[in-house]
């Protein structure tokens, strides 16, 4: 397993060009290809902004104004995460030709999916940066320095999920359908369209709300909250220690996922 993992390094060039191919193919399909790929998160953004600003005004909170910006900080990484999972669950089946006919380590396919979506996310960040400047949000440079760490943790976590899902979907084809439903739940169980402190008020640490405990069990909570703290909220990144815990767990999970993938590797060429 470790030898296979080390071998991946040699395929850097291939991963690079496959990611490039993936992005090119995605943006080439239509004139507005690039725009379309952000259409979905932007639409979500519009709907939720409207609902929370004009319809369900009771929970409005000055701390999350402007709301659209707050939500954008969380939705972008979520899009990276969820589309990576959805796409990678089918990637071994659709790439079956490669696995069967070319000598080619199969884990490259889910990894490429995750990386392509990451680049996509970076493009989204450019738009986010535009918004930040538009609203003249103050950004703290020392906080921004933490940004790569969050991205790294998310990368490890997402890749782990992608590996395990892609391998299992070869055997259980309904994972894709289950997954898309599950991700909808997951989205609402993550503080993206609402702030984490609704349930976990830092000014009142003794008051433990059960929702907060649940949210803490959700790994994506820690990513979303850290993103928001870095990009949106003023003040210190209080969630950092949780992020580091998540980082360690993600590495463990990644190794487990790779192990599962490695164990099932030989079955791919025969099953897809």
């Amino acid at each position, binding site marked *: 397993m470790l030898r296979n993992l080390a071998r991946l390094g040699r395929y850097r*060039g*291939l991963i690079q*060009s*496959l990611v490039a*191919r993936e992005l*090119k*193919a995605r943006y*080439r*399909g239509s004139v507005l290809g690039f725009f379309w790929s952000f259409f979905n998160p932007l639409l979500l953004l519009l709907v939720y902004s409207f609902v929370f600003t004009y319809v369900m005004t009771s929970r409005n909170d000055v701390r999350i104004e402007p709301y659209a910006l707050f939500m954008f900080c969380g939705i972008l990484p979520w899009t990276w995460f969820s589309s990576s999972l959805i796409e990678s669950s089918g990637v071994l089946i659709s790439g079956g*030709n*490669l*696995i*069967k*006919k*070319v*000598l*080619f380590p199969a884990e490259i396919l889910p990894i490429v999916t995750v990386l392509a979506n990451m680049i996509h996310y970076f493009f989204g960040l450019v738009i986010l940066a535009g918004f930040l400047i538009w609203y003249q949000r103050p950004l703290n440079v020392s906080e921004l320095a933490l940004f790569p760490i969050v991205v790294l943790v998310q990368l490890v976590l997402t890749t782990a999920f992608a590996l395990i899902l892609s391998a*299992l979907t070869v*055997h*259980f*084809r*309904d*994972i894709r359908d*289950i997954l898309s439903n599950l991700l909808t739940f997951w989205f609402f169980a993550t503080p993206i369209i609402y702030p984490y402190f609704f349930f976990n008020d830092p000014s009142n640490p003794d008051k433990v709300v059960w929702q907060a405990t649940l949210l803490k069990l959700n790994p994506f909570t820690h990513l979303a909250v850290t993103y928001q703290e870095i990009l949106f909220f003023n003040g210190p990144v209080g969630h950092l220690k949780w992020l580091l815990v998540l980082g360690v767990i993600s590495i463990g999970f990644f190794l487990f996922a790779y192990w599962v993938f490695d164990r*099932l590797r*030989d*079955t791919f*060429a*025969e*099953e897809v």
Partner: protein
Amino acid sequence: MNAIEVVNATKIYRRFGHKRQFATLKSALLRGSLIRDLKPDETFTAIRDVSFTVPAGRTLGVIGRNGSGKSTMLKLVAGITKPTHGSVRVNGRISALIELGAGFHPEISGRENVFINGIMLGLSKREVARRFDEIVDFAELKDFIDAPVKTYSSGMYMRLGFAVAIHVDPDVLLVDEVLAVGDEGFTHKCLDKFAEFKRRGKTILLVTHALPMVERFCDEALWLDHGEKKGLGDPKRIVGAYITDVEVSEEAQLAASDARVQESTVAVSPDEPASAVLPDHPVETAAAPSNMFQAAEGRWGSREVEIVEVTLSSGGGDRGHVFHSGDPLDIRIRLRAPLPIEDFVVGLGLFNAEGVCCYGTNTNLEDYTSQRLQGDAEVTFTIASLDLVEGTYKVDVAVHRLDGYPYDYHRLLYTFRVKSRTKDVGIYRPPHEWRFSEGIKLTRASGGA
């Protein structure tokens, strides 16, 4: 040094989930069989204990029937699948022409695909760049290289795939039946490229059904049958043995279909007295067709004379169904007439697979006048030299009255196959020879017929 070493390789394919096409997670969770569903529950041995080595610079041809494990062997050597037992070792860079253009992405241009495919096959970006023009030239796609691959015809697609794979400059080239990718000119170019590989001391493993190519091109041949090594060695010898084996099994197949005909013949001929047989005896398989030259197979007639059995054999030997061009052929017809018959004609015809009558005759045409037929009798029609080209032939056998009223007509019920080392064409091979005058010189391969 050996380029390829395969030692006692066995490949067992596992099948998952009998009785269902895909497992679903839902059912796995409901039945608590998550781990069990990931375990194979049926196995199939594609390769059984095969060993061989190919020294560097040699060309090995792998032959065998469909499903004999040839492609699996190639995948094992390519490293795409691992042997279940045993080991496979390859020294040097491999390029496998298994499926051409397997990694092409339809949306992006040929140019970008060449790069990605090249990198996938083990080149670096710079190496691809250096060979790029050569690849495009070889594929004859200069004008289309910047168009998306989805606009290519399948021939263009394959040519580009082939061009990339062959320019990887492998030490070991694996080829799986991919020479049918282009027009005549392109095929020649591919063969030239293979020859160049050979000259440069590269190792080639060739899986093919084109036996002449194995004989001409390979240093050694490996014959796989049902996943087992049936022979390894001199290509001429192995190919010969393989052809013989194929004939034997074709023989068995034809014998089986023949047995079915005989069976039905027996089944439809009740042992009733001929007096009970009326002229308009209901026929079993077909009414006498209006056009004798377009009739389908079948049997009809009054059965006042019955054809009990028809056997084909060569030179007085046992019954057979596969003969070689130039062999003698005996067609033996056993007749039975319960009551004496005085007016009868025995005839037969040979038809090729397209239904063209190659030859037809009867006793009347050859000036025999019938006198008497009663009880069991046997007629033998001997062809001294079966001068037919290779193919499958069917035989018509009939006994009828001089005026055409059928006693028993067997239409295209008997099949035999003619094999020939010479792949000449037509429906008939007149006995012939070539003579050459002074000033013209030809040499002949010893293997020719």
